[in-house]
């Protein structure tokens, strides 16, 4: 069974059609990359998969591990193992990352009828993941994303992914704003979750992250559809030539 299967998906935002006929399938263990010009609808697709209400599905279907994803509320999707790393992570004043993750982790445990983790065990689990990303100890106690730099926010998204261990991770420009060392850590984090039970959808503008995670497929989203798919060679071609040469295909 595919982890994610998107069939003929049409989505409008504020009555404006953004996606028109997206087809995509991720098999277990795969990492796919989506590239495409600004405004082509990459984030719209990511947000739609996470359940954002503003994204109106006008046609098509989405299956996640065989479940009708569109019929689930955002929190149900998350508990079932879908994770969205936001292009623009939100600041949550007064709520620490530790608190958020404890609530999130235990909500998922309850959904799966697994025992909740007690405070001490969870703190250790959290500390271990933060250590992997080289994050300072007080990081977890700071309010989520408040006053974080662009790169720090992205690292915080990745930390959340590592703690929640999703089966489908959708990472929307997780690499933007990262310095070179952070990029390596983030790539390591993504690779750490690469296993036969999971899949990852990476949205990016640059091949530098892709070089480190070696995606199985690279897609180009343009004009509301995936107009061409290939491997890393496609990403390199785009880096060299931009999107202009694809415009004919798109229309």
């Amino acid at each position, binding site marked *: 069974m595919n982890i994610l299967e998107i069939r003929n998906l049409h989505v409008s935002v504020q009555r404006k059609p953004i996606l028109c006929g997206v087809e995509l399938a991720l098999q277990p263990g795969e990492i796919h990359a989506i590239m495409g010009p600004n405004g082509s609808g990459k984030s719209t697709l990511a947000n739609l998969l*996470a*359940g*954002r*209400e503003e994204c109106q599905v006008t046609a098509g279907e989405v299956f996640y591990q065989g479940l009708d994803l569109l019929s689930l*509320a*955002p*929190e149900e*999707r*998350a*508990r079932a193992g879908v*994770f*969205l790393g*936001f292009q623009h*992570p*939100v*600041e*949550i*004043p*007064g*709520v620490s990352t530790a*608190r*958020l*993750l404890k*609530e*999130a*982790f235990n*909500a*998922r445990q309850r*959904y799966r009828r697994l025992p909740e983790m007690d405070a001490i065990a969870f703190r250790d689990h959290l500390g271990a993941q933060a250590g992997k990303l080289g994050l300072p100890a007080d990081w977890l106690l700071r*309010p989520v994303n408040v006053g974080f730099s662009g790169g720090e926010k992205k690292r915080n998204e990745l930390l*959340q992914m590592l703690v*929640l261990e999703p089966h489908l991770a959708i990472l929307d420009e997780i690499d933007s704003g990262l310095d070179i060392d952070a990029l390596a850590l983030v790539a390591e984090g993504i690779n750490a979750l690469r296993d036969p039970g999971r899949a990852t959808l990476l949205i990016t503008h640059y091949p530098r992250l892709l070089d480190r995670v070696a995606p199985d497929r690279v897609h180009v989203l343009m004009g509301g559809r995936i107009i061409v798919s290939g491997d890393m060679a496609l990403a390199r071609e785009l880096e060299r030539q931009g999107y202009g040469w694809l415009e004919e295909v798109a229309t």
Partner: protein
Amino acid sequence: MNALLQVCQQQLLAADAQLPGHDALSIRRFRQEAMQRALQTGLPTQQMEHWKYTPTRWLTESAYAFHAGGCVGLDPEDLKALLVARGQVHHLVFVNGLLSLPLSGLDGLPAGVQVESMARLARESPEALEPWLGSDVTGADQGLAALNQALWPDGAFVRLASGVQLSQPLQLLFLTTSFREPIVTLPWSVVILGEGARAQVIESYATLGQGDHFTNARTTLVLGQGAQLDHLLLLAESDRAHHVGSVQATQLGASRLAARVFAVGGALTRHELHVALAGAEAECHPDGLFVAGGRQHLELHSWIHHLHSHTRSQQWFKGVLDGEARGVFNGVVRVPQGVREIQARQQTDNLLLSDRAEIAAKPQLEIHSDAVQCHHGATVGSLDAEAIFYLRSRGLDEECARKLLVQGFIDVLLQRVQPAVVREWIARRLNSGEVAS
């Protein structure tokens, strides 16, 4: 005449001899003059400037009775949640207006700290009270304060000698038990810190039961030169109760007052803070939070009088309103002519959780001097939809997401409360008011 005024006047006539301090001419005269003022001013009405948002009909419509005070068969267990962890604070418990010694605990008070019943003090050494009788900072429109001055039956008297430090917090719990007939209580407490003295005083108001009653409270704070007081007020009476109270603080030079109020209870709760900064380098830090739901009406008022040059005030008031609740914040900063080098900051931030809730937040600066640094700001907003989606995308349901965001909103003020045992107790009391649970 208004029924409440009538009842009060009768009380003064009938119970005069039992009111503490009756044998002292100064106190007796003070009570009588206060009653005269109350009768002249009358009870507040919405025509009075500072009462225009406050519903006052309940004052004329409900019949509050006086009660002999004291407690019948109260089990210390009943009070457990209402007191900061036992053994970690000194506490005085007042039940229906009168001190209950069996429920109180003052073990291990350091030398130089006097904590006792105002009633006892007024009877046994009225001269110790005389200097503080007329020490209110308040101006006009104070008919209810005058009633308190006329009729207070008890309260706490706290005095720290110069240089004395109270290492454990002192809690004053004012508890009203519901009766079939709603009662009025009028506690007056006085806290005096000598030069360089330091203390934390927690004043909390609660109801046992769900009934209506009326608390008309007054607290006088006096901070000597260089004294430091952390005064924390928790207003958490029954959702049918009415509470009007004021804290009156006078600060001498280089003293520092943190005045924190957390208001969660009451059908109507109105708290006024009046601070007179009366010496150079005196500073006050008023913080306030109200969390209101249902049809509650909660008000916080502050009047900061910068009477002396080189004084500072820094205020942060927050409100959270759900349901059809109404909130009022009115903050007056007054700097008279000729007073210089003042720093005054005031911020109020409010969160509306329902489109039927309403807030009136009004900063009022009355600055008659140029040498003043003054900042003020007011915001009103609702929960951030982006933040709710973000939390839901992590697996939190909408209700949990909203709760977490509300907790996050009030967290800043909560985190300023020290020590942790007091902060955690306040957090629990806020939780039992549900909005922030």
